[in-house]
């Protein structure tokens, strides 16, 4: 554990990026030039395929320009050419660390068009799945952040937990990654018998293990404090202007969570807190993620307690032909606001589907916040957004 003075000493950077850039320009005085550098698309620490064009002054980044499209599959065009139910498995391939949330956003949008009324058990199962998925995304994202900073141990503990949660998801859905579990009008199948007791038992153990193996291990670690405190600092106004949502936005102090402010499913019947922090740096978004893990555990416990009996699918007919118009679905994915806009022309496939992916929007902060930081700070800042390649590239 670091003492408070030591922790203050290890602050690598102070002030906002623009303040740092405003320091006296020594380059013109000494006739120095900047250097262009390519980072990626294949880079061991990159979250997928992303190329960053960097302009460096010594080790300080002057300009950062992300180049995307290496994993572009034109999901929106594919969605226009498939019937409504057949798009659900494609949304799994978007953000492959939040598959359940992708499915949820899409089915909400189509149900908005159909004015569908869902049985309560289906809604509770959806919330249960969403929160399990959030745990399976938040816990490894803390591990990834530490992996990029050079600490290998937390990712091993994180993946042990993700593995257990994936076992539950597999028991419920039949698949490990590409679930295709949500249907327009409900969910595919009822829960297997006894799974709620098993999840409840698992959560009892998870609380202790998460505290000792991740929170206690990471929070006081010198690697973590030196590389995250003050790095990637944003003001709340700046974060909103950039379009950041999710944990990095709440890390700046903006109290905004889709689950509470734009409630969907049965989140308005559940009791949970929106975790915020006011530092606005990488460390703050890490603390928000830690807090959200506890909140997710709390939500899952309530869902298990309140789980109603009954059917899990609404009867919407065999062939879905929604009325003409717009359908919107918006969910809080682990990375922020995930929204789907479906435009129907009355036929059995969508006229237009638009995905608002949180990774894509939050990644604009690479252009805005990274300049003024040192080159090695790019990776913690990426860890703050925790972007997923399938998400930003659609």
């Amino acid at each position: 554990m670091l003492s408070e003075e030591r922790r203050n000493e290890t602050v690598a950077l102070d002030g906002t990026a623009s303040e740092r850039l405003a320091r006296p320009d020594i380059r013109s005085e000494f006739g120095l030039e900047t250097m262009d550098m390519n980072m990626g698309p294949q880079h061991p620490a990159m979250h997928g395929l992303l190329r960053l064009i960097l302009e460096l002054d010594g080790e300080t980044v002057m300009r950062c320009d992300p180049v995307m499209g290496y994993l572009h599959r034109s999901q929106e065009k594919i969605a226009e050419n498939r019937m409504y139910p057949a798009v659900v498995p494609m949304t799994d391939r978007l953000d492959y660390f939040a598959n359940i949330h992708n499915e949820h956003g899409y089915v909400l949008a189509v149900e908005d068009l159909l004015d569908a009324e869902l049985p309560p058990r289906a809604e509770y199962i959806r919330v249960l799945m969403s929160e399990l998925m959030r745990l399976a995304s938040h816990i490894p994202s803390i591990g990834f952040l530490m992996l990029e900073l050079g600490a290998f141990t937390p990712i091993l503990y994180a993946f042990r937990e993700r593995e257990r949660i994936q076992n539950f998801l597999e028991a419920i859905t039949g698949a490990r990654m590409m679930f295709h579990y949500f249907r327009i009008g409900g969910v595919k199948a009822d829960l297997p018998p006894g799974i709620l007791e098993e999840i409840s038992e698992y959560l009892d153990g998870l609380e202790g293990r998460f505290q000792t193996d991740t929170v206690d291990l990471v929070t006081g670690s010198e690697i973590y404090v030196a590389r995250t405190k003050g790095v990637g600092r944003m003001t709340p106004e700046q974060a909103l202007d950039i379009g950041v949502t999710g944990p990095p936005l709440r890390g700046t102090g903006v109290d905004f969570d889709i689950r509470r402010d734009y409630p969907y499913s049965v989140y308005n019947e559940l009791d949970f807190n929106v975790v915020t922090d006011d530092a606005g740096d990488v460390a703050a978004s890490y603390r928000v993620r830690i807090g959200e893990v506890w909140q997710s555990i709390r939500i899952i416990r309530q869902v298990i307690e309140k789980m109603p009996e009954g059917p899990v699918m609404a009867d919407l007919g065999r062939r879905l032909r929604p009325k003409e118009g717009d359908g919107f679905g918006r969910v809080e994915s682990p990375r922020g606001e995930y929204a789907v806009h479906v435009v129907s022309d009355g036929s059995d496939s969508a006229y237009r589907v638009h995905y608002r992916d949180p990774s894509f929007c939050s990644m604009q902060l690479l252009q805005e916040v990274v300049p003024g930081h040192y080159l090695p700070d790019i990776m913690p800042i990426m860890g703050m957004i925790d972007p997923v390649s399938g998400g930003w590239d659609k």
Partner: protein
Amino acid sequence: MAVSMPGGDVASRLSGYLDGLKNRHGLEEGEVEGNVVRVVVAPESVPQVLATAKAQLKVLHLSFITVVDWEGSFELTYELLDLRGGTVRVKTVIEGTEPVIGSVTSVYPTANWHEREAYDMFGVAFRGHPDLRRTYMWQDHFDHHPLLKSFDISTKRTFEGLR
């Protein structure tokens, strides 16, 4: 917290948004549906309407911009959130097959990449955008906009100039 969140109940806030927009701009349509203020405006006035929404009405978050190709006209949807349950949905229709519209990046900087994506996928030209490049497709040698309805998925595309 430095950003002030809107208070009061959603219904009165939403009618306030609608009145605020109606008083300052000529709206083609404007109504409150549930928790959404839906307005339709002329394409020329989109930047001013969004500037009013941000500066006067304090709707701080631009969620996304959707473009729909209606084969002959383009419909753009700007989804704005006030972060407390209210939504302002600004729609506009651009006639013709070569759409041009003013950029809103100076109002909502997050529109930067949304507009780049719309340009990449539909060829919508945003006047005043600081850096209108493609996001996903190749920068050079690719002259198509894949989400247009005229872009048939079964047609083989070539990279002009490469081979």
